[in-house]
């Protein structure tokens, strides 16, 4: 016999999902078959999807997002794990303070983070000043693809490592003390306990952080938009930036919707591949 009570409790969340995500997704899918600037609208079938195949800027943005994911996620994981290990054995107040300090940047608006780092990566900014102090020539960070993407990576990692640190540290602290003590009794060193006992135990948490980090990198918009504006010539642009530009600057909302559908498909496929790889 089906019990209605659990579904009644699920109803608000389900309604919220449908209204905020499900219905818009369907409408975007529908819009992708039209050519519209919201003043004049006409049905064009698959023409938008055919146009995407020849849209070099959008294809470049897809490659950029994949590259961002490869650059950002490992740094997020290594940073979060490293900081977590540093405070794992510290007194509680130190751990709590570390959580606070590393999480605070995440609370700032993305625009603020991007603008602050843009100021720091300016030719006469703090980063070049620090490089100059150790005898390195100043770099024009924001006008070359590699350095511009690196700047975005640094901005994202600095703002998000705190979030993943909270997840990873929580997972580390949840490792049963008995296993750690048993390893110590067996003669494992401090480093061996961390490498051979704690790290394998937190692999699910690391997997979750990697998935979240990848999804975030693939959908990134405001940090790249306000730090590099996609310069040079789309070399650091993301899919979301291209979609916003196509829709709201070029006025091609149908094409932007089609690109949105493609973006959802790519991100969904990557998430699925990752879940399958984890078994």
């Amino acid at each position, binding site marked *: 016999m089906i019990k209605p009570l659990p579904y009644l409790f699920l109803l608000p969340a389900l309604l919220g999902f449908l209204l905020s995500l499900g219905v818009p997704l369907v409408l975007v899918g529908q819009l992708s078959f039209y050519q519209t600037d919201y*003043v004049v609208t006409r049905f064009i079938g698959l023409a938008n999807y055919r146009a995407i195949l020849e849209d070099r800027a959008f294809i470049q943005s897809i490659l950029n997002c994949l590259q961002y994911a490869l650059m950002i996620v490992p740094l997020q994981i290594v940073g979060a794990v490293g900081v977590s290990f540093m405070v794992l054995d510290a007194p509680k107040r130190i751990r709590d303070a570390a959580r606070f300090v590393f999480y605070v940047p995440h609370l700032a608006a993305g625009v603020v983070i991007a603008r602050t780092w843009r100021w720091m990566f300016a030719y006469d900014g703090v980063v070049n000043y620090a490089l100059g102090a150790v005898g390195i020539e100043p770099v024009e960070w*924001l006008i070359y693809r590699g350095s511009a993407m690196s700047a975005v990576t640094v901005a994202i990692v600095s703002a998000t490592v705190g979030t993943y640190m909270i997840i990873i540290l929580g997972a580390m602290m949840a490792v049963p003390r008995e296993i750690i003590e048993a390893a110590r009794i067996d003669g494992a060193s401090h480093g061996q306990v961390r490498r051979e006992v704690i790290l394998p135990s937190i692999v699910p948490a690391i997997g979750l952080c990697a998935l979240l980090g990848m999804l975030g990198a693939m959908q990134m918009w405001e940090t790249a938009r306000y730090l*590099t504006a996609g310069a040079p010539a789309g070399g650091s642009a993301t899919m979301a930036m291209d979609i916003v530009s196509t829709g709201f600057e*070029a006025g091609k909302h149908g094409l932007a919707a089609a690109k949105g559908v493609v973006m959802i498909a790519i991100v969904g496929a990557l998430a699925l591949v990752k879940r399958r790889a984890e078994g």
Partner: protein
Amino acid sequence: MRKIAFIPTAIAAVVLALFAWTAYGEGRAEAKPMEIVVLHAPTTKIPENTIYKGPLKGGDLWTAALSQVRPDITVRKIAVDLSTGAAMTMDALVASGQAPDVYLDAAMRTAKYMVPGFALALDKYVGDWDDFFPGGLDAVRRGGKIYGIPWATWLTTMNTNTDLLARAGYEVKPGWSIEDFLAMCRKVKALGDGSSGTYLFAGNQSSDQWWMPWFAAFGARYYAVGDYSRNTLNSPQAVAALKFMKSLVDEGYVPRGAASNTDTEALTAFKAGKIATGSMQAAHAVGSGFRYRFVEFPRAPGVAPVGAAAGLTSIIVHESKDEARNKAAALVAWTMTSPEAQRLNVYIVAGSYMSRKSVTDKGLLNERDDEILGVMHKNGVLDMGITMPKFTPIRAMMFPLLQQFYTGKMSAEDVLKTYEANVNEELASK
């Protein structure tokens, strides 16, 4: 079990009660005045150098006038988000079915919406069109009907920081040439304090009137006179202009990072006193802590004087199925452009110039406005195609090319060839 069953029942009862109360309240709501929604470009503060000392801000004057004529109309204003230079706010409202009744913005953005069926043909709703300058009316006419009201004209030409130039030992003379300009840049750079002759940016598409006149300074044209069907920029003159702009970057006559710098950074640097020249409106320079003077752009030998870059601001009214709403919205739009509102709202608030012939109060204008208007009267207006319906998507096509050009990844010839192909493809598309 009874306790557990009570909780969801109680929640459901509260939710149902809330719905019922809301529906009952809506039913009992008294008839409200007709609300006309106005989406407008952000207003600026009243500059200090104005003659108006009254209590009303520019925007309030016309709403006060409106309330005397039609007290049954109220106006709700929404400001446009211009962070990308795009029509994002308007598009979002239209897409959600909440198109504003009245939309006031630069013609480069309103032009897209001047389409029969979307915009209201205003000919039969309001009158005294003869009071408007003909050029402004031409920009809002489609198929012989008038789909917008010219609100204001903004003008830009080259602004010069005369204090910085005096320190560098340079004075701008009328009719100055490209060589004179380069001599000025050398002197400013020689100061050695980080000051630059001018500013170039390609990081965003806004304020492109800052660098677009350089093409005219070398004799290139964006479009043939009166013909916006194809772009004509790709020319030896435009190649020379681009190479000149690149030389400014390579010689260090502009701040570093031209490929990624933005218009906000350009204006900030100018108002901080670090930049000797830059193209802008009079209103943009207000608050600068130094003396400045507007002059014409320098030009290459044999090239005609460069006109003031101009743009029109216009108002459109969204056509509704409710004729009463059409009449009310048309009246609101007309009141916004009344001579009294223009005298204060247009100039003092927006720092632009009037679109009506009858508003010629010289007392409103100051020395800086006279300088800019002087360039326009002497050299005419620079046609960048700003009133074209497709100006917004087209203007986004140059700055990515400039980014590659300034970093040496693209030649001037390739920039212009690619730009021409992209623009003409857009112009030919439906």
